């Protein structure tokens, strides 16, 4: 059996786990063995359906009141509980901080070999051969593991998550693990909201950016208004954040956020390379600038040559009109 430990936070799935499933499915097929996911905590039930869409036929669900939040050793002990019952060839996790932490605990508790950040896995009866990342990804290492069960984490962001829907329903095998007295030595003791709720720059489908041309913090009011109308987020170029017109966390560019909206409206931004790096993922760029020679005008899909202090309010009016 191949076990895939699925990372989630109170039912919110970590995408790296879906990428890991691509490897897990291939391994199970290759070894002609079964694939099962391991979900920890009652809230894991919420993602069982998603797992079905990614070709996982069986999900072990560890339930216990104490498993509401992540606790590395408790997760490891839950995995060991399944490993005790089944003949497990490989345990996989996403190559994230938590994935590594859990696998390290399993490795240490059961004295099993672990390879982190794998890209490719080849398994036969004798050994497990992996290609894995080292030195932050600048080096690939060929490694070989020997043991009864192999623990592998899969490097994130490199293997695409592929949907392969099951024919039937996912079979849920619920169990209550018994924990050692050390299982909750490390646990979540509190949660703090990072920022006030709102659409983050990196996720927004519309981003309004302001640069030198905005002229000051008060100039951003119009941009905020437009963003509200379009359910978008507001960011700034380096000039805007360096001058204190926008907080540094709103910077778009080489240093700062890399955005990928459907529409990026760049207002009074010249388009220095530092900035363009941050918005090269935008599907459409609308540039508003008084200088037709500004580099951004060349990169933009739509261009308004004009003063943003007139153009932006005009757009705001127009959007309001149409929304009515």
């Amino acid at each position, binding site marked *: 059996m191949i076990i895939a430990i699925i990372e989630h936070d109170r039912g919110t799935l970590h995408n790296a786990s879906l990428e890991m499933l691509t490897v897990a499915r291939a391994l199970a097929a290759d070894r002609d063995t079964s694939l099962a996911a391991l979900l920890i905590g009652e809230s894991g039930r919420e993602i069982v359906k998603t797992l079905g869409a990614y070709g996982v036929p069986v999900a072990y669900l560890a339930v216990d009141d104490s498993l509401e939040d992540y606790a590395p050793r408790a997760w490891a002990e839950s995995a060991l509980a399944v490993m005790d019952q089944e003949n497990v060839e490989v345990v996989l996790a996403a190559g994230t901080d938590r994935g590594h932490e859990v696998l390290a605990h399993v490795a240490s508790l059961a004295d099993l070999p672990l390879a982190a950040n794998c890209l490719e896995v080849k398994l036969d009866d004798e050994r497990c051969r992996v290609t894995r990342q080292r*030195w*932050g*990804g*600048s*080096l690939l290492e060929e490694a070989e593991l020997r043991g009864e069960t192999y623990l592998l984490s899969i490097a994130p962001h490199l293997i695409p998550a592929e949907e392969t829907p099951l024919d039937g329903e996912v079979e849920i095998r619920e169990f209550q693990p018994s924990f050692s007295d050390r299982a909750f030595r490390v646990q979540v003791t509190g949660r703090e909201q990072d920022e006030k709720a709102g659409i983050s720059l990196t996720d927004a489908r519309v981003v309004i950016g302001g640069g*030198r041309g905005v002229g000051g913090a008060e100039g951003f009011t119009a941009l905020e208004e437009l963003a509200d109308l379009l359910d978008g987020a507001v960011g700034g170029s*380096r*000039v805007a954040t*360096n*001058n204190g017109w926008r907080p540094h966390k709103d910077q778009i560019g*080489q*240093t*700062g956020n*890399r955005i990928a909206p459907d529409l990026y409206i760049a207002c009074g931004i*010249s*388009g*220095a*390379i*530092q900035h*363009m*790096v941050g918005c*090269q993922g935008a599907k459409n760029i609308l540039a508003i600038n008084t200088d037709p020679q500004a*580099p*951004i005008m*060349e*990169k933009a899909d739509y261009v308004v040559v004009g003063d943003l202090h007139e153009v932006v309010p005009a757009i705001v009016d127009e959007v309001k009109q149409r929304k009515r």
Partner: protein
Amino acid sequence: MLTLTEKILFVSLALISGAWSFVGFQRMTEVIHRGEGEFNFGQLPRKAFEALFKTLSQKTVLNARLGTSLFHALVAWAFLYYFLVNAGDLLEGFLPGFRFLGTGLVGGLYRLGADLLSAAALVGVLYFLLRRFLADAPALQIREGILLHPQARKGMRRDSLIVILFIFLHVGARFLGASFRIAAEGPDPWQPLAGAVAGLWAEAGPGALAVGEHAAFWLALGLILAFLPYFPYSKHLHLMAAPVNFLTRPERRSLGEMRAMELEFNAEKFGPSHLEELEKPLLLDSFACIMCSRCQQVCPAYEAGTILSPAALEINKRYEIKVQMKALAEGEPSRTPLTESVLLEEAVRACTTCAACVEICPVGNEPLQDILEMRRYLTLTEVSMPTDQSNTLRSIERRGNPWGFSPADRTRWTEDLDQPVPVMAEKKSADVLFWVGCSGSYDPRNQKITQSITRLLQRAGVDFAILGQEESCNGDPARRMGEEFSFQMAVEANAEILASYEFETVITGCPHCFNVFKNEYADFGVDLKVLHHSQYLAQLVDNGKLKPRKDLNQIITYHDSCYLGRYNEEYDAPREILRGIPGVEVREMPRSRARGLCCGGGGGGVFYDVPHEKDIPEIRLEEAEGVDPDVVASACPFCLTMFEGAERKETADVLTKDIAELLDESM
């Protein structure tokens, strides 16, 4: 002069002092030898001459802070002379009736020298006493918030006081001794100053004068015995460590050349995490450092208000060694990692690698090298770096440019030009290979510079070609950020491409490309004849192939790029180009040429931000504004990017352009 009892006492004390000092000096050398690598003992005669010249002439001290340095020179020259004086006094003390160098002209001149230099040393040391303790000179302070060894602030003051008192008493006693002798034995025209003081003792009897002479001897020479064991723990050691430093420096092709790392595949650790893993010369640096903080004064990162001070780096190294010298000498590991005791990680990343600290250091220290070595550890072993940096590194590795643009877009800049730009893949050979560089290829602003250079080459009829889509990052930013793997992979890839075409000269549109090709590819067997575009264009103007005609009617100040200027000492070519343009008045900023201030973009600085109070490019533009120019000219794409991205609070009007652009405009 000395009695038998005194002689026995002096010899006994000398033995004790010698043995005690020996232990200290031995520990010091053992600590230094814990370091990695070896000292460079090549070309010893030449370097010995250089070390002697630098020490005697005080050249490296006098080239900054002239006033203070002159006082330093007085003390230094006196101290050097005092090697002779002390030897002479010792012999005279032990050999009854002996007169060192005789009573003739030679002896007279010797005594005149001692007389004048004693006074000089006293004046000099008095100045330093007042400077440190009365004026509390700001130049010697290190800003709060910068990591400084807990003992350093007090320790430096105490150490300075001990050294100053030692010199004062040692030289003062010797001077008084000379005056007692004159009072006892009659006037000596060769010692006018001691003679004048001797007038004060005219009334004293021979017994009292003899006692005075003995007391002076003991103070002057006895103090040396007392001070000697303290020497290895004092910054005053610089007077010995600095010449040794000059003598054993690694030969570098540029001020900031980096050592090629042996990247053993199975190594678990790259770069130094602890003191004893630094290179030997870098450990010696800390003993040579006199803590004058000149490096801090010229450091752009310090001026910008980051937490980096190269002075604090050297001082911390020294105090870390000092508090665990015995343990380190005995082979124990140092107690804390460098990033906790010497330089915090954020400070390591704040350096722009401008090498101003190396250029200014009077004792030949290279704080830049410590920083670069520490980066290697952080990047390669800890994989610890700001996200912006790891993005940059990944882009260099995967897409061959620091921003992650598509390799297919590398030649987009050629599309707007009237004439086609020849590409090596088709042409196979050319006189000149124009290495455009990533900035010049992708950055919309710098593409304009590349187009100017291309137009100028075409106008001058140069047989040239570009690599086009075969060009990719040469690895310099990766290397400077500590990613030696990426760098060496880039070298390998580029070496192969470069070897497949025929050309005589490479010209680069970027000082960073220029520097790495000229000085650092050679370690990997790639020998290129490289010129920076300013050098090549200056040649074309010089031999009449380019004739700037159009009057630009502008006042221009030229900003030196660190990698063209300080690293490669090319200060004149860009200025010659500007002076050759009709209607251009070139004005110099206060900090120019070897003392030019960095734009903040080097060493990967253009790719990430560190917490700071004031933008470095803004500081530089304000300085430029001071000479009231129409244009700030530069010859480096990173400088231009930094300037164009500056806040421009006060400097909104000044234009920033590349010299190639200006030359192109005047055609």
